[in-house]
């Protein structure tokens, strides 16, 4: 019972991190580690992402 609740909690956290894009940072760090390059700061990384969003607006429907 507790294990199931814990699993569900993990699942929800995983989903929210993915949906909000927070997990992109983890992915980026992992990628840097694999390619053995120095990662940029989180601030710069997020700026980079928002700059991309600035140039590629996403429509919201009715």
């Amino acid at each position: 019972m507790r294990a199931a609740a814990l699993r569900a909690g993990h699942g929800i956290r995983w989903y929210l991190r993915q949906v909000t894009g927070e997990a992109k940072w983890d992915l980026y760090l992992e990628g840097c580690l694999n390619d053995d390059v120095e990662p940029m700061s989180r601030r710069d990384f997020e700026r980079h992402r928002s700059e991309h969003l600035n140039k590629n607006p996403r429509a919201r429907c009715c």
Partner: protein
Amino acid sequence: MSTVTSPDQTGRKMTPKSMVVWGAVALVGAVCWAMLALSRGENVSALWILFAALSSYAIAYRFYARFITYRVLGTDNTRATPAERLQNGADFDVTDRRVLFGHHFAAIAGAGPLVGPVLAAQMGYLPGTIWIIVGVIFAGAVQDMVVLFFSMRRNGKSLGQMVREEIGTIGGIAALIAVFSIMIILLAVLALVVVNALALSPWGVFSIGLTIPIALFMGFYLRYLRPGRVMEVTAIGVTLLLAAIIGGNYVEQLGLADVLTLTPNNLVYALVIYGFVASILPVWMLLAPRDYLSTFMKVGVIALLAVGLVIARPVLENQAVTKFALDGTGPVFSGKLFPFVFITIACGALSGFHALIASGTTPKMIGKESQVRMIGYGGMLMESFVAISALIAASVINQGLYFAINSPAGATGGTPGAAANFIGTLGFTISPADLTAAAHSIHEITLISRTGGAPTLAFGISLVFTKAFGGGLAAFWYHFAIMFEALFILTAVDAGTRVGRFMLQDTIGNVWPRYADISWKPASWSASAVVVGLWGYMLYVGVNDPLGGINQLFPLFGISNQLLAAIALALCVTLVLKHGKARYVWVPGIALAWDLIVTMTASWEKVFSSNPKIGFFAQRSTYQAALDNGKLLKPAKTMDQMQQIITNSTVDGVLMALFAVLTLIVIASAIPVWVKAAKLGGLPTTEVPRQPSHLVDAAEIFATPQEKEAIREYQTTQRELAASKRELAGSGRSR
């Protein structure tokens, strides 16, 4: 091994267990539909509608969507998707199917599926229910999935691009103009809904107004304080949002009630300024944080509403079919059931706008081809469910009150006494005291002629929540629901203005390249001003229309949205034929045929009907004739208003004709392609040639045990690969 063969693809026979399960689902559906068809009069539970919808969706998803995915489209999970081939971490990015479902749903679902069904409730609950459920299964979800698939096979090309390349240049230009102008109407109608919800509502203005500083705070928090912590800042934002809703109750004590009681015209100016500023600010400041809030509220309220309906089990106050369905004299919008129910409920049954999303970001993020089923078809079923919930919420309200809220001010006269009289002439009874009491129960000044759907829906939601969760919080729930709608309408207005601005810059950039530079301020500012000016004008027209803006503009919006769907479905038909699958052309074909019948009838009536309540030009000549004779015609009270009606009907009529002609141009240029493709058994298309996929992922919502095993195996190899690469790099450096 790159994929696991799922039983779905091999066309294996159903197991006895699944036969029993699906037999039971079919039985539940049949019983619910029978109850809806047969019970008349008192005490029909809303749950019959809810469960008729859910079981129909389940069956459609299991059987029809599967047939389309594997037979008609022939998805191939050994073929690499653009996300896999072109992965760049930005546009092209393999995204978990469940996460992508969330993104896609948040992008397609907005105020549309909430407003349309509320207005269509004037014809009774049955026509709307049938159209929402049957329409989504055979038209809306099919369109979304098929466009998504074809765009995915073309590296995520947009609808306009695909029409140009697969149908022809003229069709492509017509589609582009249609998309842009329909977007303007959409933004104007959505903004009109907000204006009607917030006018004379200091509480609403207070809480919605506060969303701007809240979003700005979130933006700065994410930019400077703790970059990237979206969940944390959303939690803070939602808390502040709830505080803003509760705080609205105290506007009187704070002495703000007078300042915040805005007239519709003041709200128009506020929205136009807001729309302009929001669309030129960098997205991190306002748009992105707002989007987090509105998505959270959207999903939260929808889930809460579904739970609330099941707990409250409300009884439908609405009739199954009202007399307005048959005689076409309804006050909310004019015209008979056919074709007007089918264009009033666009989103939720069939929405052309979705084709823009399905050929935008979503196709660039799909990991496996067969996932188009859950994302395209499944996402639209979910939106349809939202529409059904809205229809129920509008149908549990006292019908006298429903018509008092939704009839234009020209009809109700605006005062409780006059409104009660008017409701009496419609054949319903409600006393002036009850009208006032209803408004006071949710701390509003008045509910009379609060058209646009939002106040009705909010009132219905508040009834359901109060019954389900108790606590006498009717006023809080009402404003909570208004906030929920206004929030994502404003997000759609921001985002839509921005998209419109980019489209305009891109188009003008074809002749004047510098104008396309999105970082060049004179271009971006002027393009934004043009877009805002266009929808702002339509909004102003709608707000001041003596005949009622919603009454006049909503049909225009519904028809144009469905005309866009006709363009998208024509593209689907073209591609099915070009790919040599003429035997399956009926799948998009029946949706297209029905949609054309409905929209062409509706636009014909709107343009040519001799009934001034329906035909825009008949309306124009009636009022013009009266004006020439120096006479006033109701509901106009002054000669200025007469002139206003004449101008508005002309603008609306011309736009209506323009949209219909643009669609016909696309269809006309597609027909020769259809004939040729059918004759030759196929034609070359711009589909990207097959490349093998190396990615392992599940094909459907739930991974099978074999798929889970394969995914685990794949992930282990990927990790080992990365580790060995790291080791190699490490040893390389130490040398």
